[in-house]
């Protein structure tokens, strides 16, 4: 291992720091200026500084809080569902996948499809006159529910998101599950532990860092959902399926309220930062508990 002094660190870190300053620092600076300005597409080069008015407008906008609640609820529920299903599948299918590893490939297929395509696909699948789901529901039960009205759209979107991203959780959980040494399981079994006890008292605690990590990754992805929701329901009747990214997109492009959109994105950035910090903290705590 080579020991670097301060000068050495500076030399090695300078390209990365330069890159970050150039490609992240500059846009962030511009964003901060715009978020404090009254700016539209007509005065992009001469924004009028108005202080924290945009932040006030965003925080006082009921639709912003509805979008935040949608994103939070969507992120938490889909992350829980994906983790529970992914964990169940990882444990249940583990013996099978161990023997036939090629099975992992078809299980991962939904991850290969762009989320926007998933949204479009379900627009067809759920359409009353051309979709297979309503067709068979009419055939068998004489009726089909409305999948995309204001009451049901949220849960339809949750199911669509969960179906696409559960394989991601499965992949991580399966890898973590297989990484547990068999000696530990065998020793527990010799000590008289049942299969359930091995799972809850041995395997799950050992998988805890992966469980936390996967949950947060899926939560962040769910929280910032855009593509499949936008292509499937847009922002929904009365804005009922507006996630925070959709709120920002619509404020920016549809309303031309650039300052407001960027102020909302800065708030989202800060919220994400807090989320990532929590992830790191929990991850460290998990590692400590496991060791």
């Amino acid at each position: 291992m080579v020991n670097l002094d301060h000068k050495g660190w500076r030399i090695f870190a300078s390209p990365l720091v330069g890159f970050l300053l150039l490609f992240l620092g500059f846009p962030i600076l511009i964003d901060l200026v715009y978020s404090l300005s009254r700016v539209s597409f007509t005065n992009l080069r001469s924004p009028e500084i108005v202080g924290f008015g945009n932040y006030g407008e965003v925080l006082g906008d009921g639709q912003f809080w509805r979008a935040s609640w949608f994103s939070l609820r969507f992120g938490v529920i889909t992350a829980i569902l994906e983790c529970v299903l992914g964990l169940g599948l990882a444990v249940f299918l583990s013996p099978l996948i161990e023997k036939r590893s090629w099975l992992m490939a078809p299980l991962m297929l939904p991850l290969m499809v762009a989320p926007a395509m998933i949204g479009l696909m379900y627009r067809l699948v759920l359409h009353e006159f051309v979709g297979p789901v309503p067709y068979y529901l009419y055939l068998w039960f004489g009726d089909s529910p409305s999948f995309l009205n204001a009451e049901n759209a949220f849960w339809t979107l949750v199911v669509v998101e969960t179906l696409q991203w559960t394989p991601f959780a499965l992949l991580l959980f399966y890898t973590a599950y297989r990484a547990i040494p068999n000696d530990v399981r065998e020793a527990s079994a010799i000590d008289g532990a049942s299969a359930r006890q091995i799972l809850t008292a041995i395997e799950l605690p050992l998988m805890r860092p992966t469980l936390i990590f996967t949950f947060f990754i899926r939560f962040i992805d769910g929280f910032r959902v855009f593509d499949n929701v936008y292509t499937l329901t847009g922002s929904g009747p009365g804005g009922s399926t507006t996630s925070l990214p959709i709120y920002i997109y619509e404020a920016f492009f549809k309303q031309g309220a650039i300052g407001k959109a960027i102020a909302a994105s800065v708030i989202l950035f800060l919220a994400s930062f807090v989320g990532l910090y929590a992830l790191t903290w929990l991850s460290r705590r998990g590692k400590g508990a496991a060791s």
Partner: protein
Amino acid sequence: MLKFTKITLSALALITTSLGAANAAVTVLGWPGGSEETALRAVAEAYNAQSGVANTDKVELLFYSRDGFYDKLQADMAAGSSAFDINLLATYSIGRYASYMEPVDLGPDAAKVFGESVLKTMQFDGKQYGVPTDLSLHFMYYRKDLVDALLADPAAKAKYAEISEKYLGKRLEPKAPDSWTWDDWAATALYFAKSVNPESPVRYGTVLQMKNLLFNIMVWQSVARANGGDWMDASGNITIDSPAYRTALELYKKLYDAGASPKDSLSYEYAETNAAFGSGQVATALQWNAAASELTDPAKSPAVAENVGIVAPPAGSAVRADHIHGLGLGINKNAKNKAGAAKFLQWLATEDAALLYARSGGSPALLPDVAAKIAKERPDLVTLGQYAGAYGYVMTGATSANAFPVYELQAKEFTGYWSGQETLDEALANTKAGMEKLLKP
């Protein structure tokens, strides 16, 4: 060495000339991927082939993808791009782009080709910003077989009257579609809805496109307009909270709640509406004129094509109204070749060019005597011109810089009411407040 120098100089001269020509050519940013692109290619080719057009004024075409077209255009224009001399514009976005564009003089003959009401779709603040190349409006599509059967059967007429009395509060008699009022249409939609009339031969009486999308508001707002509704009055006061808007909003909600339109109508737009009507399970549909070719084509809509009737949208208590908006081409303020661009647009506004554009698949709204010259090849354009001239309207303020956000606002608030998340009073109050902010002078 001399030979080498000559060849090098000749090559340099050739490169310089061609680069100069490329720079001076008129670059047109068009609407990609549909009949508009095919028609634009045809007229550009014809224009370039004319002997009077200088090499430096030849037209070159440029296309983005349709996805996010206007967002990309806005970003480009705001950045002062000179990558194109002529750009696409639409009625509802003229105000948004006018500050990046040059007004254009199309000459006195343009009005004789398109008519004043159609030229207006490309005007902002009294100035002409483009040539109206394609016009969109709405047709009321209906099933001739179903309506004929209704009109011929006394028992069905009695049932119709009973339904109209129960749901609309007045006893109505079935009429021929071309003389429908919005109430007649609503009664027909209710009569053909299985949820209202279990004996109906189809599942739904109509298909309403109610997704939270600005284009759907354009489809719906003719109901409000027909009852005398407008965005603002002559003094600039927002007049959205009016009996006309209330009646129109309530009518859609009544039909949706009664099950006259599919359950997922709140997520329906153009494509879903075509699929629903084309399935043969829907009796009527208020839809864009562009759908006519699909719905009347036996290969594309085998279940209904032979029985599709088309009329203008029904009349209201005030007038019979049909929303119109146009796509057109105008001059970029940062154009490198403004003079060449103006020449091309002036030519495009002539009768010959408009007819060529129409023959090549475009949908210009032409005055009746001009449209008559291509009636055999494009009978749909005769209807288009007729309806645009007789019933076409643009809401006051609907070409302003914030017309786009106004439509967005209405889409959000009105779908909120239709889906039961807001009361009518809340939706109208929110819309009024938002419009006052967006349309203030």
